[in-house]
C-alpha cells in the first residue's frame, strides 16, 4: 500500500482526533532505520562497484597486452618458418598456444567483471531510487503529523483563551468594515487638508490684492464712469 493511501486510511479511520498521530513514533523510527540501512547498502554497493570496475579495467589492459603478445609471437613464428627453422617455429607456436589460453581466460574474466559491474550499477540505481522514495514518504508522514500537532496546538490555544476563530463571513465583514472606516477617515482628512490648504492660499492671495476681489461700490462707480467717459 502506498504511503498516501496509508495516510488517507488513517485519516478516515478516525486518526484525526486531536493528539493522535498517523503513524506511531515507533514505526516512524523503524522507517528511519530502514532508510539508514538502505543508505548503508548503497555505500557498500558503490564501493563494490568501484572495485569491480577497477578489476575490469585491469583485465581489459591484460587482454590488450596478451593480444599484442600473440601478434608479436606469430610474427616470430613466421620469421622462423621463413628461415626454415621448423624447431624454433614450433617452440614459438607452443608459446602462442600458452598465450592464447591465457588470453581466453582473461577475456572470460573481463566479461564476468563487466557484467558484474552492470548488475551493480543497476543495483545502485535501484537503491538510490528506493532511498529517495523512502525519504519522500517519510517527509509526507512527518509533515502530516506536524500539521496535525500544529492544529491541535492552535485548537488548544484558542480553546484556552477567550478569543475564538470567527466564521469566515463575519471575519471578512469585520475586516472590510475596519478597512472601510480607515479609508473613510483617510478620505475625510485628505478633504479637510485640501480645503484648509485652499483656503489658506486664497486668504494670502486676497491679502496681497491678487485674484478675484470682492466688488465694492467704489469699484462699480469707477467702472460706470469709465464707460461714460
Amino acid at each position, binding site marked *: 500500500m502506498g504511503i498516501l493511501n496509508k495516510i488517507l486510511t488513517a485519516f478516515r479511520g478516525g486518526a484525526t482526533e486531536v493528539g493522535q498521530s498517523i503513524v506511531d513514533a515507533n514505526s516512524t523510527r523503524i522507517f528511519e532505520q530502514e532508510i539508514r540501512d538502505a543508505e548503508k547498502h548503497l555505500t557498500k554497493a558503490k564501493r563494490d562497484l568501484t572495485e569491480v570496475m577497477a578489476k575490469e579495467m585491469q583485465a581489459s589492459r591484460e587482454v590488450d597486452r596478451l593480444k599484442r603478445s600473440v601478434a608479436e609471437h606469430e610474427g616470430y613464428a613466421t620469421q622462423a618458418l621463413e628461415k626454415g627453422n621448423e624447431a624454433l617455429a614450433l617452440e614459438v607456436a607452443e608459446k602462442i598456444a600458452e598465450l592464447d589460453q591465457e588470453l581466453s581466460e582473461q577475456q572470460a574474466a573481463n566479461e564476468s567483471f563487466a557484467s558484474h559491474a552492470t548488475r551493480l550499477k543497476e543495483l545502485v540505481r535501484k537503491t538510490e531510487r528506493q532511498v529517495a522514495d523512502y525519504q519522500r514518504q517519510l517527509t509526507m508522514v512527518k509533515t502530516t503529523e506536524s500539521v496535525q500537532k500544529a492544529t491541535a*496546538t492552535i485548537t488548544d*490555544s484558542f480553546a484556552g483563551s477567550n478569543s475564538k476563530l470567527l466564521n469566515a463571513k463575519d471575519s471578512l465583514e469585520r475586516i472590510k468594515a475596519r478597512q472601510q472606516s480607515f479609508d473613510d477617515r483617510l478620505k475625510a482628512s485628505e478633504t479637510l487638508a485640501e480645503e484648509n490648504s485652499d483656503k489658506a492660499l486664497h486668504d494670502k492671495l486676497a491679502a496681497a490684492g491678487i485674484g478675484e476681489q470682492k466688488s465694492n461700490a467704489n469699484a462699480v462707480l469707477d467702472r460706470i464712469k469709465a464707460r461714460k467717459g
Partner: protein
Amino acid sequence: MNIHTIANHLNELGDSSQTGFQFDCYPIAGDVEVLQVNVVGREEIPVFVSVTDNQILCISYLWGEDEVNQERRAEMFETMLELNIPMPLSSFAKIDDKYVVYGALSVQSSMQEIEQELSVLSDNCLEVIDELADYLN
C-alpha cells in the same frame, strides 16, 4: 530556521516591511511549536506558521465544514480546484473539518520571501472568502 527567528524578524519590521503590512507574532507552545501571525487590521484571520525538517508551512483557516452549504459543496470544490493554480503562491487544503489555504516554503527561504508569502496568503484568504461566500451558509 525556526518560528522564533521568523517572529523576531516580523516583530522588528514595524513600518519598514516590504509588503506594506505590519505583523504581530505570538508563538504558541505545544507538541509542535506554532507561530500565530496577525496581519494588523486583519486580526480575525491569522496565519499560522510551523517549521518542519524541510519546509516552512504557512496556513490560514478559511471555514469549517459546518459553514459550508452542503447542497453546493461539490460546486465549491470545483471552484477551489479551478482557483488553485491562478491563486498566487497558495493552495487549498483541508485539515480535519476545516478548509484552509496554505503555502509551503523551503527552510532555506529568506525573511523577505517569508514576508511576501504571509502577505500574499493573507490577501488570498480575503479574496477567497469574498469569492466563495456564496457557497457558505
